[in-house]
Structure formats: structure tokens, C-alpha cells
């Protein structure tokens, strides 16, 4: 590896860059505040997508003013409700009989706006759907990551 003589300015700049990078890295590599006991959800089958299901009840951006960071997840769910409705949520809420599928987390009280697991599953489903994966393949990938 070649040795490089740094000017005082470059040395300070590199030190600041390293410090900032460390801070950003430290922020990222931290357990999310919303964990809901990830990987500890009750095991159960994925639901069958309901015929004619749509995104009409998915919360809109104007309803998510206090959770702006979650808006992309809700936007992606709005594009593939028939897929999201075929996924069992792994955050632990699936034991609530009122919640039929992962889609339910994006309707009503919109609990997904505060839950990284709900968001992660939906965004993963969207990403894999964009890559041409089937619902069965998406379910398998989500189970592997979140079980």
C-alpha cells in the first residue's frame, strides 16, 4: 500500500470524515427502538389474499404526518395490496384476530407507521415483487428473515 504524506488540512479532514462516518455507522448498527420481539412471533400459516382486496383503506401520506419516515412503506403497500394481503405479519400482531394480514397493519390504526418489522416485511415484499418473485417465494424469504 503506498504511503501518502497528508497536509495538515487533509489530515484534519480525514479525521473528521472518519469520525462522521463512525457516528453514522454507529447510528445504523443499533437495534431499532421498535422491535416487538423480532423473530418471536407465533408460527402460523400465511393468509389467503382476499378476493377483490385493494388499497382503499391503506393510510395516505396526509394521515402519516407524525411518521413521515414510514410513508415510502405505505406507498409501496398501496401498489401491491393483493400481495401484502397474503403475508402473515411476524411482529407479533398476528395473534390479534382483527388483523387478517400484513395489509391490516397499514389500515385502521396504521400500526406499521411505528413498527420496523411491519415496514421491513412490506418493503421486502415490494422489492422481491419488483424482482419478479412469486407470492410463495416472497413468503419464504420473509419467513427466513423474520421467523
Amino acid at each position, binding site marked *: 500500500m503506498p504511503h501518502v504524506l497528508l497536509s495538515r488540512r487533509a489530515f484534519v479532514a480525514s479525521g473528521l470524515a472518519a469520525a462522521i462516518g463512525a457516528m453514522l455507522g454507529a447510528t445504523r448498527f443499533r437495534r431499532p427502538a421498535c422491535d416487538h420481539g423480532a423473530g418471536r412471533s407465533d408460527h402460523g400459516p400465511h393468509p389467503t389474499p382476499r378476493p377483490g382486496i385493494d388499497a382503499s383503506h391503506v393510510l395516505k401520506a396526509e394521515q402519516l404526518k407524525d411518521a413521515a419516515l414510514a410513508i415510502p412503506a405505505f406507498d409501496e403497500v398501496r401498489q401491491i395490496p393483493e400481495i401484502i394481503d397474503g403475508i402473515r405479519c411476524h411482529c407479533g400482531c398476528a395473534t390479534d384476530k382483527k388483523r387478517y394480514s400484513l395489509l391490516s397493519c397499514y389500515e385502521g390504526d396504521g400500526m406499521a407507521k411505528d413498527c420496523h418489522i411491519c415496514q*421491513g416485511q412490506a418493503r421486502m415484499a415490494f422489492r422481491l415483487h419488483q424482482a419478479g418473485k412469486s407470492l410463495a417465494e416472497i413468503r419464504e424469504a420473509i419467513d427466513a*428473515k423474520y421467523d
Partner: protein
Amino acid sequence: MRTANFAFALTAALAIALTGASTRAGAQTLNASEPATVSQVVDGTKVTVEYSRPRARGRTGLFGSEVTFGHVWTPGANQSTTLAVSKDVSINGHPVAKGKYSVWMVVAPGDWELVLDHDTTLYHTNGPSRRPGQVRFMIPKEHHPFTEVLTWSFPVVGTSGMVLTMQWDTVSVPLAIKVTPTFTTAVPPEAAQRVVGTYHWHDAPSASGNGAAPPGDSASRHASAFTVRYTGRELHATLDPPLFGDPAYGEYILIRKAGDLYSLGRVDRGELIEVIDYATLQFSPANGRPKSFEVRGTDDALWANGAIAP
């Protein structure tokens, strides 16, 4: 006169009321042996001891006198001490099934015998005789500086278990508890060969969302060599330079979840100390050979990616 009588009556009434109030509010709660609970979790298994804490109060040489040899004694006071384990464990190598037990020790000049009984309602004077269903085995005791108040504690905590210790007078009784692990580090060779190699690791920009990191931006991102090797049926990985420039974030064990999906186990000075379960490492081999990977958080955000070094 009437005013003075009234003032006296009012004062008396207030005094009676206050005395009554303090009596009603201050029910007697001072115990000779106060209750206590200690608890420790390791890898999802919770171990809890509930007991009352007797004090020596000037007494010494308790074992062999106050607590006679051969006595089936609960290490506590009042109700029997209880031990609850949320999952199957082993104690000093002996299997103990998930559940709650009353704890007894048969005191002797040499090693003692630990007795775990399923009846958790026994009073300290009612030590159980030998009966089916009990867990019983010999336990060593150690000499320890004098401890005034009987104390249960967890002085040692590791990634595969803990040491639970009872101390009173000059006696210490350590119990080595091993928990049922929630993960395995073993990886079959056919899975390992799909991922072994040296990769270029790049942190994704923080604003990447869940898309791929933009090309041509590597100068501003942390870049490391990520070397994965197969040793003793385990996948070990080194990140050089390590995250945050800290050697404690440079060594890992890959814990297989399914297929080519792994969790990262952080290794510090040769010991697995943490399973980073809020991120996963997805390898994407090509034709069964290592090619690339992505690290994503619980929210599916891209944290890092990389490709096999040419």
C-alpha cells in the same frame, strides 16, 4: 371558657384523627427477613430466584449450628426459596426442565446436596423428604468472606449461561447454569462453499432506503475487505478495517438462518458475545460460487453490500 374548651376538643379530635390515619396507612411491614427477587436472562432464557433474606445478626458459624448438618434447609427464610427457569437448562451439568421449583440444600461438613422440588408452597420448616420428581445432585461449596445477609446473585454472565451463587456467613455455593441456545453456528460444507471468499464491503449511503447503493460513490463510504472462511464447520468472517475502526467490530461468526441468509454473530477476543438479530446478510452466489451480498436491517433498509474480490 367555652372557646378554650372548643379549642381543646378540636385539638384532641385532630390528634386522634392523625394517630388513627397513621395507624391505618402504616400497617406493619418490617420483616426480620425481607423478601427479594433476582433475575437474569441469557440468550432468551430467564432464571429467577425469589427468597427472603435472613441476617446473621451477630451469629457466626451458622452452618453446623443454626443450620444443622443433615438438615434439608431452604436457602432463605419464611416461605421456601424458589427457582424458576423459563426454558430447559442444565445446572452443574444436570438437566433441569423448564418450570418453577422450591430450592433446598442438604447441609453437610463437606459438599452439600441441592434439592429442587416441584412443590413451591412449602414453608421453610417443612423441607421435603426424598420423593419422585425431585432434581437432586451434589454441589460444591466454597469459603467466602463473611456475608451478613443471605444473598443470591449472578456474578458471572456469559453467552451460553450464567453462574448463580448463594452466599451467607462464610459459605458460597456457585451453580453453573447452561441455557438452551437459540442458534447454532454449525454450517454444512455445501452451504459454506457458496459464500467462502474475500469480498469488497461497502457501507450503503444512509439515505439509500431499500434500493441499491448508487454507483460511483464509493469514495465517501466505508470500504473494507470482508473475508469469509470455513473452519471447524463454522463460517468465520473478518472485516478489515473493522466497523468504527474498533477491533471489537472486526470479527464475526455467520449464523445460518435459511439458504444463503445469515445473521452476524459478533466475536470479541475469541468469544461470541452478541447475535445481531436486527440485520441479516443475504449472499447471492452464482452457479453455486460466491459472488455478492447485501446487509439489510429489520426495516429492509440497505446497510452494506459487496462483491467477491477479483
